[in-house]
């Protein structure tokens, strides 16, 4: 029985804001979960909660060096914050194309090496609306070297109503203009890829 994955509002929100900031580009990023302290006996029933999202790149996703840099730096940040990289998301350049590709499978597999329950998430831009009335993700699990799609519905969220409400509010307010991804950080090191201001906005609206 695969462990289910759940997303917090903050994680879902920042994913969508990243896609909204660059509607004409492919975007990708990582999802992080809190590191489980010890293996509980009934751990198979506790879903993995992705508490945050780190937007990585926009535009050309298929080059290796900056991805490796990002994974290295974010890995250290995770250790400091007792997080673990638990997933990868990607929105393709063409709206109608929401299938996983070589990049998503490669990065997903790399993450799965360190975290067996890693999820690969593809954003379905055809259903992307300001109102966020339905979850627009497709979640894939790594099974015997293949990626299998599983149902994504309101159960994949810690609190879907909250996620819907807050994501929609931030989209309307154009918060995506201030979203920072790793590319922005490389352009100017002062740009903070943890997005503390957006995190504050999310908390504020809760």
């Amino acid at each position, binding site marked *: 029985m695969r462990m289910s994955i759940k997303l917090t509002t903050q994680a879902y929100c920042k994913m969508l804001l990243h896609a909204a900031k660059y*509607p*004409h580009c492919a975007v990708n990023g990582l999802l992080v979960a809190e590191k489980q302290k010890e293996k509980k006996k009934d751990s198979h029933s506790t879903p993995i909660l992705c508490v945050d999202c780190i937007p990585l790149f926009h535009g*050309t996703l*298929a*080059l*290796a*060096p*900056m991805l*490796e*840099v990002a994974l*290295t*730096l974010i*890995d*250290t*940040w995770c250790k*400091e914050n007792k997080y673990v990289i638990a997933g990868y998301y990607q929105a393709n350049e*063409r709206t*109608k*194309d929401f299938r996983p590709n*070589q990049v998503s499978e490669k990065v997903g597999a790399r993450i799965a090496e360190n975290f067996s329950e890693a999820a690969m998430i593809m954003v379905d831009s055809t259903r992307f609306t300001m109102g966020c009335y339905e979850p627009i993700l497709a979640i894939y699990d790594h099974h015997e070297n293949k990626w299998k799609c599983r149902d994504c519905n309101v159960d994949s969220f810690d609190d879907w109503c909250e996620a819907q409400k807050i994501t929609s509010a931030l989209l309307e307010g*154009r918060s995506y*203009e201030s979203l920072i991804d790793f590319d922005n950080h*490389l*352009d*100017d*090191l*002062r740009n*903070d*890829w*943890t997005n*503390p201001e957006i995190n504050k906005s999310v908390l504020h609206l809760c």
Partner: protein
Amino acid sequence: MSFLYCLNPEKHKLRKWREDNHRNSEQIVDVGEELINEHASKLGDDIWIIYEQVMIAALDCSRDDLAWTCLQELKRQFPGSQRVKRLAGMRLEALEKYEDANKQYDSILQDDPTNTAARKRKISILKAQGKSAEAIRELNEYLEQFVGDQEAWHELSELYINEHDYGKAAFCLEELMMTNPHNHLYCEQYAEVKYTQGGLENLELSRKYFAQALKLNNRNMRALFGLYMSASHIAASPKVNATVKKANVKYATWATNQINRAYQLAGRGTKENKCSVKAVEEMLESITMS
């Protein structure tokens, strides 16, 4: 002159975005729509280029109403213009009426077979339809004729990267580096492609080009990180002799110190920044230990 700009900071903004080729369409629509609606009379002849800029931005934001208005104004002022015809084609593209858009571009090309804009729009349609192989083929043919078109070479390099054909992407970037030897971005992108291609020879090439990019612009962080990554991978390779290893450890160490310095300069003691600095220190340790 500066007095005019004071009167119209909005106009100045639009011009800067035009010159920098910024795709900040929402902002352009915000600023441009107001300028057009409120201050059209004060814009003089600049209004036509603003209509064009705002129209394209409006298409990007699905504001067909605004795009249509701009297009009508331009059609009225420049009847029969190929440039305006191309804008009409772009509107059809935005509405996903690709057949009609292609007809529009074909009619431009019938009158003027050297119209590069129309040919490039046709290639963009192929890209939008997901026909990457055809787009690549057409773009190659285009470049045989218009070998100096840098935008086209760059577009082709991106198409190849997306198809994971790094060798051909590298070739395109080599063309760009030849004609733009002082452009640090092309050097750095070439280095990234070589790195991704993999193998010791390509890694060494990538290190050289990351270094070259840094020489051209010592604030290019991607080049600095890339130098670290390539040098430390070479140093860690079992295929290199002790001399090469030692040299690359030196390069990687230098890069790490520079990265450290850059973070110190940028940081205001933020938590995230401290983590980055720590990560960089760990990077340094890992090289010197190997």
